[in-house]
C-alpha cells in the first residue's frame, strides 16, 4: 500500500528523530515518524527494573562478534522515545580537542566542523529542554557559553563522599550537567531523586523525547506511526534521489511511504543496516556507500568502574541515575602515560539492587546475600568513561540470515585496540587511588569483560564521499535528500556521554534542512 506523500519521513522516534520532527513540523513541513516498537506513554513507565526491560531492545537482534562484542542491549531503546526514554541524561559536551584529533595528534581523523560550530546548539538545546548544572564551573576546561537554565541538582552522600579523594588526587570535580529538572522547568516538575530514571521517568522531570521534542512535534502536526519497521530506502530510477521508504506495519503488511526527504534516525547499528539493504543497480554497495564506508568506524566508550565500601551510610538509594559530579581533568588525549584518548570522570549516582549485585559479579550464594546486606547502605562508585579511537575494522555488515520481514540481519564486529585497553587500565589505577584517598574501607575495580557503552559511528561525517558518508549536517554526500541523524554520524567518540551532542547536532542538521529546503526538493 502506498501512503500519501509527505515532506519528511523520519525512521526512528528516538533522540535524534524527535529533534528533526520538532524542528521541521514547526517549520510547516508534513512529517511522519516510523518507529519499529510500541508507542510508550509516561504512564507505562513502572518503577521496577524488571518491568523496565519492556523498553529495552526487541525485534531483530544485531548479532555480535569481535574480541569485545558491543553489548548494547541495556542501553538501546525499543519503541517511541528510543533509548532516550530511559537514558541517564548525563549532558557533558565534547570539547574542542575532540574535533581536531588528527591535527593535534596525527591520530584518527578531524571532524569537518569545530567545537565553535556546535557550541551554539548545545546552548540552544539546553534552553529548549532544560539542563541543570553550573556552566561557569565547567569553563575551566572549555570555552565559555551560556549559563544552564537551571541550577545544579542536589547531591547526596554517595557523591559527596568521593570529593576528598579527588581533591587529594588533583582532580577538580564540578556539578555534572544533566537533562533533568533541579527546579520546575517549562511546566515540568522538579526531580524527586528516587533513582528510577533508567526505567523511564513518568513525571517528566527527565528530558525524554515524550515531554520535549516529540511532544512539540506532535503539537505541530507530526504523525508518529508505531510498530512500523522500515526495511528499505527507495530511490528514483536514476538513483539521484530518494523517494521514500518501504516498511511493514503493525499487521505486518508492506507499506510505502513516499517523501521529499528521508531522515534515518534509527541508531548507529540500524542506520548502516538500512543503507546497506537499500542497494540498487545504481548504488550496488548500498546507498551513500560509494566509498565503502557505510557500517565502518563503529565506536564505543569503555568504562572503568571503581567500587568502594565506606563506614558511613552512603545513601546510595538516593539521587538520580545521572551522575552528581564530573571532571574533564583527564580529558586531554595524552593525560595518561602509555595510553591515548580522553577520559571523562564521574562520581555519585543512585543504585538499585541489580547495581549492588553487579558490583560483585563473582559472588554467589551466602556470600552474595551477606554482601547485599552490607552494600545496601555502604556502597558507592565512580566511573571513568574512556575514548576509543575509530577503527575501520569495527563494523556493521549484513549477513545471510534474515529477520521476520525478510531483511538481512546485521552483524556488529567490535574489538578494542591497545590504546583503549591501556586507558581503561590507567583509569582503574587512578580510581583505586581516589578511593583510598577518600577513606574507603575497601575498594576494588569493576573488571570482567571490557564494557562497551554508547554505540557511535557507522555513517561518519567528513568532507567528502571519499572518506565519509555524510557532511557535518548529516546530509549524504551522494544523495542530497537523504539525511542521517544520531550518534552514527560522529566522526570520533570523545569520552563524553553522547546524547547532548546527538541533540545539538540534530538541531543543527534540522535547522539546516529547513533553511535549504528548496535545494532538497527541486
Amino acid at each position: 500500500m502506498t501512503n500519501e506523500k509527505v515532506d519528511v519521513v523520519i525512521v526512528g522516534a528516538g533522540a535524534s528523530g524527535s529533534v528533526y520532527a520538532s524542528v521541521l513540523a514547526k517549520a510547516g513541513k508534513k512529517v511522519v515518524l516510523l518507529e519499529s516498537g510500541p508507542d510508550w506513554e509516561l504512564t507505562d513507565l513502572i518503577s521496577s527494573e524488571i518491568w523496565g526491560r519492556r523498553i529495552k531492545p526487541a525485534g531483530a537482534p544485531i548479532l555480535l562478534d569481535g574480541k569485545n562484542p558491543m553489548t548494547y542491549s541495556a542501553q538501546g531503546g525499543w519503541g517511541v522515545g528510543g533509548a532516550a526514554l530511559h537514558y541517564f541524561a548525563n549532558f557533558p559536551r565534547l570539547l574542542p580537542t575532540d574535533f581536531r584529533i588528527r591535527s593535534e595528534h596525527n591520530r584518527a581523523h578531524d571532524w569537518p566542523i569545530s567545537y565553535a560550530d556546535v557550541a551554539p546548539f548545545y546552548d540552544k538545546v539546553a534552553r529548549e529542554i532544560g539542563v541543570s548544572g553550573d556552566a561557569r564551573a565547567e569553563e575551566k576546561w572549555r570555552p565559555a557559553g551560556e549559563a544552564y537554565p537551571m541550577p545544579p541538582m542536589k547531591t547526596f552522600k554517595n557523591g559527596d563522599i568521593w570529593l576528598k579523594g579527588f581533591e587529594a588526587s588533583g582532580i577538580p570535580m564540578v556539578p555534572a550537567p544533566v537533562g533533568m529538572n533541579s527546579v520546575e522547568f517549562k511546566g515540568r516538575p522538579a526531580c524527586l531523586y528516587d533513582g528510577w530514571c533508567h526505567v523511564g521517568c513518568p513525571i517528566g522531570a527527565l528530558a525524554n523525547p515524550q515531554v520535549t521534542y516529540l511532544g512539540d512535534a506532535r503539537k505541530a502536526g507530526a504523525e508518529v506511526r508505531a510498530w512500523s519497521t522500515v526495511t528499505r530506502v527507495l530511490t528514483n530510477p536514476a538513483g539521484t534521489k530518494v523517494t521514500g521508504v518501504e516498511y511493514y506495519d503493525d499487521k505486518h503488511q508492506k507499506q510505502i511511504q513516499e517523501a521529499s526527504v528521508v531522515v534515518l534516525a534509527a541508531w548507529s547499528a540500524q542506520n548502516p543496516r538500512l543503507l546497506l539493504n537499500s542497494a540498487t543497480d545504481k548504488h550496488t554497495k548500498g546507498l551513500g556507500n560509494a566509498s565503502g564506508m557505510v557500517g565502518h568506524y563503529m565506536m564505543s566508550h569503555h568504562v572503568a568502574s571503581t567500587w568502594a565500601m565506606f563506614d558511613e551510610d552512603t545513601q546510595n538509594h538516593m539521587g538520580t541515575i545521572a551522575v552528581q559530579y564530573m571532571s574533564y581533568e583527564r580529558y586531554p588525549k595524552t593525560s595518561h602515560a602509555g595510553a591515548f584518548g580522553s577520559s571523562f570522570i564521574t562520581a555519585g549516582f543512585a543504585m538499585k539492587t541489580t547495581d549492588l549485585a553487579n558490583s560483585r559479579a563473582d559472588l554467589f550464594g551466602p556470600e552474595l546475600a551477606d554482601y547485599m546486606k552490607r552494600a545496601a547502605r555502604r556502597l558507592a562508585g565512580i566511573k571513568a568513561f574512556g575514548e576509543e579511537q575509530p577503527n575501520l575494522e569495527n563494523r556493521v555488515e549484513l549477513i545471510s540470515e534474515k529477520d521476520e520481514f525478510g531483511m538481512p540481519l546485521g552483524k556488529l564486529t567490535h574489538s578494542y585496540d591497545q590504546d583503549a585497553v591501556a586507558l581503561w587500565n590507567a583509569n582503574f589505577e587512578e580510581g583505586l587511588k581516589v578511593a583510598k584517598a577518600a577513606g574507603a574501607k575497601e575498594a576494588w575495580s569493576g573488571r570482567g569483560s571490557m564494557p562497551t557503552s554508547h554505540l557511535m559511528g557507522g555513517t561518519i561525517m567528513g568532507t567528502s564521499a571519499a572518506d565519509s558518508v555524510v557532511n557535518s549536517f548529516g546530509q549524504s554526500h551522494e544523495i542530497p535528500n537523504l539525511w542521517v541523524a544520531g550518534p552514527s554520524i560522529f566522526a570520533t567518540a570523545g569520552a563524553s556521554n553522547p546524547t547532548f551532542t546527538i541533540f545539538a547536532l540534530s538541531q543543527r542538521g534540522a535547522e539546516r534542512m529547513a533553511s535549504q529546503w528548496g535545494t532538497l526538493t527541486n
Partner: protein
Amino acid sequence: MADIGRRSFVKGASLGALAFTVGGAEVVMAAGEARARGVPFRLLDAHQGETLEALGETLVPTAREAGIAHFIDQQLSVPPHESLLQARIFNFRPPFAEFYRTAITAVDAASQKLYARDFAQLTPTEQREFVDRMRQNKIEGWTGRPGALVYAVLRADAVDVVYGTMEGYEALGIPYMPHIPPEKRW
C-alpha cells in the same frame, strides 16, 4: 501503541504480577505464589524446573521459594518483545527457551561426568563447588554456551526474583520509592 502490546503490558504491570494458567484459566499472581500453589509449568518439564530451582538457590539463597523456575517458565511463554528476562539484556536471539534448555543439558552433562548425578541431586556443598567452577569456565568437557555466561544469566534471573521485588528491597532495608508502584509489591 498497538492494542496487543499495550493491553498486555498494562495488565501485567498494573497488577504487579504475572499471568499463570491454573485449571485452564489465567490467574495473575507473583512467581513465588505460583510455586507455592503448585501451578504447572507452561514450557519447562519437571526436571528442568527442578534444575533451575537448584541452580537459582545455589546462586541466590531463597530464589527457589521466590519462584525462579515459575518466573522463567512464565516469561518464556510470552512473546520475546514482552519478555522481562535478562536474556533480552544479554542480546540472546529468540526464542529464549533455547538458552535455558541447552544450559540445563550442559549443567547435567557436566554434573554427571563429575559426580555421576544430575545437578539437582547434588549436595549443597557439591552444588556450590560446581557453580564456582562453572563461573570460571573451569569444567573440562563443558558443552554449549560458556559456563560463565550460564552463571551470569541465571544469577541475574535469581537476583531479579529475590532482590528485584519490593519485598527484596524491604529485606535489605532499602526504601523502594516508586513513582508508579507495581501493585502486590512486585
